């Protein structure tokens, strides 16, 4: 039997806006197995961050359930949830704005340890901070530095150390390397990979950079306008994408090689439509080149097209 650590069931997060109800996350369901990394990709505004936050209840879901180790965390009291959150951490994109500029590196890393009373003895806290700094590759000489004195890569290492301080089992990484240069990005990706293997962590890895998840994730979920439109093991998704949007997305990635045969680029027309009160049709219908009557009449459901490969498209059989 699969060892499921997280199950998300019919998750919804709506925002009331002046122009109507914004469907940021609209009926998303998936599971993750322990020790695996699920990559969530999709264009700006498709609901990746909102999904990540709603899972941790940093945003209260509008509807739906989230099971962590079999426990329905959406029904936990705030107190119980706070305890649960030790096991469920998040790392943000912008390491600068998520760090307190007045706190030193060691104070920043010690903060969650003190707040959650994981350790009380001053010496023990200090030792733990040192240990965490070693784990994430921060030199000990930086203990008394402030965030503004550090580069983006080191700040991101602080964010990772803070998350690890709680000894979590599960971490949502929300664009953890998007703000970094490639040479530094590779350092952080390797660190996360190492931690995952050493500690048996489970990750949700949110990014708009498909080459990064291709490298990092075991499975990939593609979102479009608040919905999950395709999910499959990484290799399967890259080799046999089914949904017309996924195929266009993959074909749009610029490949840093010269003299190779490039796959034909599928150019999409127009841009992502509004997530406010979306009409009852396929969310991709306006940009899709295959749109037919059915697509305009109803929104397709996520189906298992082949074992482990889920897709939400009326015409999926034509694309298999």
């Amino acid at each position: 039997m699969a060892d499921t650590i997280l199950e998300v069931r019919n998750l919804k997060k709506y925002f009331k806006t002046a122009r109507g109800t914004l469907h940021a996350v609209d009926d998303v369901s998936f599971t993750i197995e322990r020790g695996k990394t699920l990559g969530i990709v999709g264009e700006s505004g498709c609901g990746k961050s909102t999904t990540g936050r709603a899972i941790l209840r940093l945003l209260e879901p509008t509807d739906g359930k989230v099971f962590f180790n079999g426990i329905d965390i959406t029904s936990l009291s705030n107190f119980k949830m706070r305890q649960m959150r030790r096991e469920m951490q998040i790392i943000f994109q912008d390491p600068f704005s998520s760090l307190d500029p007045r706190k030193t590196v060691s104070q920043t890393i010690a903060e969650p340890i003190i707040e959650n009373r994981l350790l009380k003895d001053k010496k023990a806290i200090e030792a733990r901070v040192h240990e965490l700094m070693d784990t994430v590759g921060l030199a000990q000489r930086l203990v008394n530095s402030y965030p503004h004195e550090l580069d983006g890569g080191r700040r991101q290492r602080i964010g990772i150390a803070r998350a690890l301080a709680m000894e979590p089992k599960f971490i949502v990484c929300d664009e953890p390397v998007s703000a970094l240069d490639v040479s530094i990005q590779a350092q952080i990706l390797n660190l996360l990979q190492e931690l995952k293997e050493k500690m048996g962590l489970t990750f949700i890895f949110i990014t708009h950079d498909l080459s990064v998840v291709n490298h990092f994730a075991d499975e990939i979920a593609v979102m479009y306008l608040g919905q999950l439109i395709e999910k499959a093991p990484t290799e399967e998704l890259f080799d046999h994408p089914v949904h017309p949007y996924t195929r266009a997305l993959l074909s749009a990635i610029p490949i840093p090689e010269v003299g190779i045969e490039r796959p034909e680029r599928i150019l999409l027309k127009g841009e992502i439509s509004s997530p406010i009160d979306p009409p009852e049709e396929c969310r991709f219908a306006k940009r899709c080149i295959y749109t037919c009557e059915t697509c305009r009449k109803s929104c397709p459901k996520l189906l298992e097209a082949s074992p482990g490969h889920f897709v939400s498209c009326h015409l999926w059989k034509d694309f298999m």
Partner: protein
Amino acid sequence: MAEQKDMVLEMENLNVKFVLEEETVEAVNGISLHMRTGETLGLVGETGAGKTTTALSILKLIDSPPGVLECDRMEVCGQDVLKMTTSELEHIRGSLVSMIFQDPMTSLNPVFTVGQQIAESLERHENLNKNDAWKKAEDMLELVGIPRERAIEYPHQFSGGMKQRVIIAIALACSPRLLIADEPTTALDVTIQAQILHLMKELKEKRNTSVIMITHDLGIVAETCDRVAVMYAGRIIETGNLDEVFNHTKHPYTEGLFNSLPNIKKRKHKLQPIHGLMPDPTNLPKGCAFAPRCNYATEACKERRPELMGFGGTHQAACLAYEQAGFHIERGKTNG
């Protein structure tokens, strides 16, 4: 002299410093660029490498103070930019050379319609009257894939991708000989990026415009450029045509960049990051700026700044390791 006439840009030994109260930033340290008509050059490098500063220097748009620009020669289509008066410079900006700035949201004026903004540049540079300029502005919008009726709308009514199309329309309205595009798609999603790059390529081919494409994305370079120059700490450390630089990489930094990149086509290979950080531009190492991070650095690298040297064809790299007999980098081989 046909060859001379073919050149849209000749820049020789550009140096730009920013002299601040407590320190001096050495942003660009001896860059030479030569561009022919119709050619697309990719200028790549990481944050702070000096790409934007180099581009702004071509139009003498460096704020001074704190900027100090020195250059042995800077000619745009045979005209000496260094000697130009402010009004002469105004004239070539937009007509001979135009630029797509790195921060797209600041380059459109929120209080004018997009049509007015394109027309304004046409009135100024092409001496068109109001009516003709407006008509041509509408034509330009259509050319970049926006219905002409939308000329009367304001920038905030447009999405990110459409704003970038408007910016391209403005930049190309006066048919410049040289277009400098500073990270034109960095803020956009990949599917929109693909649309914009496709559009730029089409327009450039139609008009034989030369393009300097500034980017940190080697994938974009591979797909849109003829030549590439890799910058590190204000210098060009490797340059050549795409095959030379991508398939026969010579410089250790370029090699490091390639090894850091997650590659869609090689899923399981382990990333090999470049260790350490970019040098502080207020305190550059005396020798090769890459030496502290370089796996091949020798004693000489710490003492002497390497100059670009030829590797056959148009390929040049600045690396002292090649002074050792037999030194070579493997990337080209394993790649082939």
